[in-house]
């Protein structure tokens, strides 16, 4: 049996591999949201952190002509944006959603400005993208997709099995109780937000230099918000968030594959497939697919 001129099994494999690649920045962004929000700091700034990370990755790639510093820089830039989020929302107790909006606007503005100023008129050669892992059947998997899957389980183990993880969960559920037993709430929240920023920065590295050789302004294109939705969909749990990210990756991949081989034709069916992830999220939020309850002190300054 063939579909799109390919054996069905091979097509299925290709759809799944593409789904994993699409899911990589969503997974990393969702993990960023999970760790921040389990500590009680709302993170709608994933988009801005990822975009900044991608720009940092591009800057380091063309400056050092090497990919490892590019990944590291992307991660660090994500962390820097997170420190700004922490400084505003933890130290100055700015409304966390407003602080996140500031990060998103600044992330878009600063990366777009610097890109326009430094690279728009004389685009330098990029040293390419990270190595991919070949998959039987002709596809290939981006390297950071594997890293992201490992990090899902690492973060789960850290949250559930370490002292720091316990403290993160404590300051996210009941900061006053944690404070009473001697936990430094602000310090734990800062550390969680920082880790979240590093993860979002790695999500940016999944764009540049992970999958795409060059930066374009606004290239994360709202995926940070899809990551946020995956976090909620996954009920603030790393593994749940990963499953949600895979679901989103799958809908995007199906949309992509079906469109490119012409199974789904015409703008209307393609648009309808494109609406699926968002409708699914709305249904989850509305409680039709089980209730999603945030950490008790999420968004409450201390």
């Amino acid at each position, binding site marked *: 049996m063939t579909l799109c001129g390919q054996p069905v099994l091979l097509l299925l494999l290709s759809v799944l591999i593409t789904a994993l690649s699409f899911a990589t920045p969503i997974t990393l962004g969702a993990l960023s949201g999970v760790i921040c929000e389990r500590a009680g700091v709302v993170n709608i700034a994933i988009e801005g952190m990822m975009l900044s990370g991608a720009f940092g990755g591009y800057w380091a790639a063309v400056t050092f002509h090497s990919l490892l510093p590019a990944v590291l820089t992307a991660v660090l830039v994500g962390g820097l944006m997170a420190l700004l989020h922490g400084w505003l929302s933890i130290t100055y107790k700015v409304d966390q959603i407003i602080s996140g909006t500031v990060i998103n*606007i600044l992330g*878009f503005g600063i990366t777009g400005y610097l890109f*326009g100023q430094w690279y728009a*008129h004389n685009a330098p050669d990029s040293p390419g993208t990270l190595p991919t892992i070949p998959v039987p059947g002709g596809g290939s998997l981006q390297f950071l997709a594997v890293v992201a899957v490992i990090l899902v389980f690492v973060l789960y183990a850290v949250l559930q099995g370490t002292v720091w993880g316990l403290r993160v969960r404590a300051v996210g559920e009941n900061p006053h109780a944690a404070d009473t037993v001697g936990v430094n709430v602000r310090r734990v929240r800062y550390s969680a937000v920082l880790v979240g920023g590093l993860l979002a920065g790695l999500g940016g590295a999944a764009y540049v230099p992970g999958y795409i050789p060059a930066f374009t302004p606004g290239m994360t294109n709202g995926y940070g918000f899809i990551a946020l939705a995956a976090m909620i969909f996954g009920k603030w749990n790393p593994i749940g968030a990963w499953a949600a990210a895979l679901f989103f990756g799958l809908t995007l991949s199906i949309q992509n594959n079906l469109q490119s081989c012409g199974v789904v034709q015409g703008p209307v069916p393609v648009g309808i497939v494109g609406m699926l992830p968002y409708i699914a999220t709305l249904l989850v939020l509305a409680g039709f697919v089980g209730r999603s309850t945030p950490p008790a002190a999420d968004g*409450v300054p201390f």
Partner: protein
Amino acid sequence: MAETTTAPAPAPQAHIPVTTEQAAGSLVARLARDLLVPLLAIFTSLLIGAGLIALTTGSPGTALEAYGGLLTGAVGSPQALANTLIRSTPYIFAGLAVALAFKCGLFNIGAEGQVAFGGLFAAYVGYAVPLPGLFHPLLALTAGVLGGFLWGAVPGFLKARTGAHEVITTIMMNYLALQFVGLMLAGPMKKPGSISARTPDLLPTARLPMLAANLGLHSGVLLAVGVAVAVWWFLYRTTWGFEIRTTGANPAAARYAGMPTVRNVILAMALSGALAGLAGAVEVVGVALNVSRLNPGGDRYFGLGFSSGYGFDSIAIALLGRSNPFGVVAAALLFGALRAGASTMQFNTHPEVPGEIISVIQGLILLFVAADAIIRRLYRVPATAAGSAALTTGWGDKL
């Protein structure tokens, strides 16, 4: 129950005669106090923006050139002033939309989708429904209001009935709106024979009356100021407005006082969407596109990417205006001026200063207005007794 909550007993102080000088003095003092921090925030943001330009170009002169261009492009000529007003008009509506939702304790991040829906609805009436004279733009605007109202009511309903947080539902609704607009513009509403995703040209009868046709200035700005007054009147002089504000300030108290909090939340989100929809509608029937010597009146139509950027800009405007309708008008004028001046700034500078510097400045303004403690510490401004209240309460707030 309703009477006791809607009409607070007049305070005894109200009977003490107040001289006009005292009233004027207190008004000026209050205005100065309220404006001091936002003005310092704007000043500081412009300063940092200049620093960024100087640092990245290596010449402080470029920063001066850029700001000179910005000023010329925003207010330097009648055409520049008209451009500022044209750019500010949708900002006023969209800023009012976010501000009205804030007053009910709701964070409407979905202005972008609501603007798109309003624009799409208005465009349809504009090109497909032939109507005489003034009725045509009026019906197109009404359709835009209706589109935004319905699109905004959905997250309001989800919030009120299921507790689904409006931040995330409005973000999802934004993507749904963009997908929907995309498929409409690629299929059923596409201009026949056009290569770009856009609707047919609006009928000439659908155009908004012009204030200055040679400058492209349409009457939408008057409507915007009128709507700002109406929103103020609604919020502060009507029962529904009072109930919406009470629900925003303290939902538990509002419910205890017998107010229909569920209705208030749905109404506030729907009205917020309606205002954003009006932004899109006015833009469609007002703004002349493809103006040239052969086509001095320009065309009106709705094209892809129409609403991009309104989501975050409108939030920043509402916050800068402190959710006060008149503050929103002032903030929208500032943002409109920045956007209008951006192209002259780019034209005036060599090498060109990228237009994204405007987003940097806007982000910084929002940062310093939200974290006013930074500004107060920097300029040693004492804190006011009122302080800044939290606008939202995370994901978990229940009605």
